[in-house]
């Protein structure tokens, strides 16, 4: 149905031509779901843009063919392409909120597509749009027809985008990271929906993703890309059990799965024995009946409803939940950026909830409780070099100066594995993994006793995530820090934590030792979270 042969795409930039895709070939049969998997910069998105001929300015197909049921996509006139887009081939983009027009009702946006391709007239557009909403299993489609995108959740928005993409019965659906940024249960819902619709309508699909496990679960065949080239293709089981290319093996290794240890995320040659961390019996942090109430527009909103838990010295606790469950609010309160409405936070026996967050910067406990933020790019000052960023806590709270300061910064850089040559770079000159290292170095600079990690690997590629998680394990053993690891990814939590807390709607639904909660979950919510995580085919235990 779709045949791509030796396709090459390059971009003209100030620094010369950049070859984003360097000659790839693959075929897509009718009814097949093909997964294109690769890390950032592998050229997987560019490939799909090239097929749709929506490359950014400066980008062009420099070689090869792409044939879609006999039509040469490279040479087709722009007018024909416009006809094909949406009707024959349609696309789901990464960020559903960005793909929808924020000031237009979603129903109208579906109608627009229908009428553009003459699938509906003014009179029956509304009925057809509601049908399209029904097809993507939206409850109360008549009511949702009049909703604006901001009134809907991320998962709902992605369903609307699916509805728009599928409204004209295309024969090929390209989904570019359709579930990035969605919660794990909505990821499952959206992916299940897409798979069912594709099967029902006998369409073909290309799923572009960085998540090998997700691709393995939903695709018939997987193409692995790296640096603009296809390094391997095959069926999911084969890719997972007998990866041939070393890069595929690295990706497979780095994908967190059941029955793996944290070290097995790394390539075999880097696997040293994981250091053990000592968990003491003394309680470091004791949270009692914590409540946070916001003043919302329609009355008070309870973000955190009376939660209690303990973190022992040296222990790593995972805080798991989906967006809006109150886990971020809880961590902001614990790190003293926000005041609780009521409740106690006993840190080493002292109630720090009594100290107002405004004045906490001057408290001697400030250096004891630190945090690594979710998005490393956002959490580094764009005007500060890495050296400046890492030095700041040392200057502010440890009062280090001159030679001593420089030595300590370099010590921290080597602790987190940041080459010294990168210390004088600005954040925009660093890669995602390097930025994560800088922010971890800043957080551990003061040797805190309690460190909150707010999804520190959410924005990273899996192989970088593997390295960062292992770094955290090493640091924990070296420094004896207690972690509160906030995440939505149960697999990652299982690898890193000793104890896990599952939160939903501001309440703790379950907590206990990781193995207990993960293997014999009691709460239904925990079970559904576990079920929603993609389960890649397990391979023979090697090494």
């Amino acid at each position, binding site marked *: 149905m779709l045949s791509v042969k030796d396709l090459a795409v390059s971009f003209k930039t100030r620094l010369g031509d950049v070859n984003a895709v360097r000659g790839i070939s693959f075929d897509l049969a009718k009814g097949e779901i093909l997964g294109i998997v690769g890390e950032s910069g592998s050229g997987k998105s560019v490939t799909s843009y090239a097929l749709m001929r929506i490359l*950014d300015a400066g980008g062009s197909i420099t070689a090869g063919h792409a044939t879609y049921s006999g039509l040469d996509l490279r040479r087709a006139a722009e007018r024909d392409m416009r006809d094909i887009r949406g009707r024959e081939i349609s696309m789901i983009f990464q960020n559903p909120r960005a793909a929808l027009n924020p000031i237009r009702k979603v129903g109208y946006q579906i109608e627009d597509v229908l009428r553009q391709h003459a699938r509906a007239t003014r009179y029956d557009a509304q009925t057809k749009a509601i049908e399209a909403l029904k097809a993507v299993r939206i409850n109360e489609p008549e009511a949702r027809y009049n909703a604006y995108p901001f009134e809907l959740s991320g998962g709902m928005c992605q369903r609307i985008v699916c509805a728009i993409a599928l409204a004209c019965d295309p024969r090929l659906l390209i989904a570019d990271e359709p579930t990035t940024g969605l919660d794990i249960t909505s990821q499952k819902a959206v992916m299940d929906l897409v798979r069912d619709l594709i099967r029902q309508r006998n369409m073909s699909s290309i799923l572009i993703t960085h998540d090998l496990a997700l691709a393995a679960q939903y695709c018939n065949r997987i193409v692995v890309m790296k640096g603009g080239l296809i390094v391997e293709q095959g069926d999911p089981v084969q890719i997972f059990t007998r990866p041939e290319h070393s890069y595929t093996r690295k990706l497979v290794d780095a994908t967190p799965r059941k029955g793996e240890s944290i070290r097995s995320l790394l390539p075999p040659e880097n696997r040293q024995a994981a250091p053990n961390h000592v968990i003491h019996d003394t309680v470091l942090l004791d949270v009692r009946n914590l409540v946070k109430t916001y003043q919302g527009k329609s009355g008070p909103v309870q973000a955190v409803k009376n939660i209690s838990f303990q973190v022992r010295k040296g222990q790593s606790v995972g805080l798991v939940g989906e967006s809006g469950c109150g886990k971020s609010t809880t961590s902001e309160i614990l790190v003293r950026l926000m005041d609780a409405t009521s409740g106690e936070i006993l840190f080493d026996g002292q109630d720090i909830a009594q100290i107002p967050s405004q004045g906490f910067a001057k408290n001697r406990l400030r250096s004891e409780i630190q945090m690594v933020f979710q998005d490393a790019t956002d959490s580094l000052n764009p005007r500060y070099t890495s050296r400046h960023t890492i030095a700041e806590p040392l200057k502010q709270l440890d009062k280090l100066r001159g030679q001593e300061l420089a030595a300590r910064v370099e010590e921290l850089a080597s602790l987190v594995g940041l080459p010294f040559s990168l210390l004088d*770079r600005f954040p925009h000159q660093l*890669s995602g993994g390097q930025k994560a290292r800088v922010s971890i170095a800043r957080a551990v600079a003061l040797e805190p006793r309690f460190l909150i990690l707010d999804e520190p690997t959410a924005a990273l590629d899996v192989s970088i995530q593997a390295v960062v998680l292992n770094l955290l394990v090493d640091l924990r053993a070296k420094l004896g820090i207690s972690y509160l690891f906030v995440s939505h990814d149960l697999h990652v939590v299982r690898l890193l934590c000793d104890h896990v807390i599952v939160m939903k709607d501001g309440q703790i639904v379950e907590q206990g030792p990781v193995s207990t909660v993960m293997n014999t979950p009691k709460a239904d919510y925990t079970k559904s979270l576990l079920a929603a995580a993609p389960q890649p085919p397990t391979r023979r235990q090697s090494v």
Partner: protein
Amino acid sequence: MTKISKVTTARSQGRFDHLAYVLRENPITMLAFVMFGLIILSAIFGPALVPYDPLETNAVKVLQPPSWDHWFGTDNVGRDVFSRVITATRLDLSISVAAVALSFVVGSVLGSIAGYWGGWLDSVLNRFFDTIMAFPLFVLAMGIVAALGNTIENIIYATAIINVPFYARLVRAEVNIRRDAGFVRAAKLVGNSNIRVLALHIFPNALPPMMVQVSLNLGWAILNAAGLSFIGLGVRPPTPEWGIMVAEGANFIVSGEWWMAVFPGLWLMIAVFTFNLLGDGLRDIVDPRKRT
């Protein structure tokens, strides 16, 4: 996904390297900086170098057209227009730089406070700025000078006051969007007080757009000062000043002595033009993200 990682050279760049890079990359910025340099030089050394005393009258050489002796001709009392135009640079530039500096500082402080703390303070400050902006600004400046008295300082204050809202609004918006950014929260975690966070982390990030505003404003402030002098407020004759010279020359344009008004006007235009061109270059210089 689609970003092509740029090849970055692993060398640390000093301020000077970066300045040289920005100038090399953009010939218009280069031109603007050269012209800016010339304006600065004529402001500093001009009064010492000009061929004639700008205040010396000469009844014999009245209203002479441009010649080798008098490049820009002479005025109605025989003063050399060229000497007067060059000498006036210092005064006009000082007025505008002082006014812009004043409004930059005041606007930054007020805007930062409004943007960072928000609440009633923000509302009060915003309504205050709205009030200033509701007046026709030049008329407001006229009023201020007329009320405070006809001195150079008062021209500076008047120009500064009418520009404050522009800076304050810009800073307020820039501070507001960064108030809850990750790096701001991270800065609080490492022991920075609110004021330090605001001054050292948030405010510097607002500098790039501020620089564009500053340079546009410099041109505008010169025009404003010249305008006030033109209508007889502020600088008083016989002090050489572009606005007064244009005003005096305007009387003679009808009778054909165009050079009296055109040359100071041209200089005024060149200065404003230079400042307008300077903006983008200044922004690139203060933005570390332009260093790759």
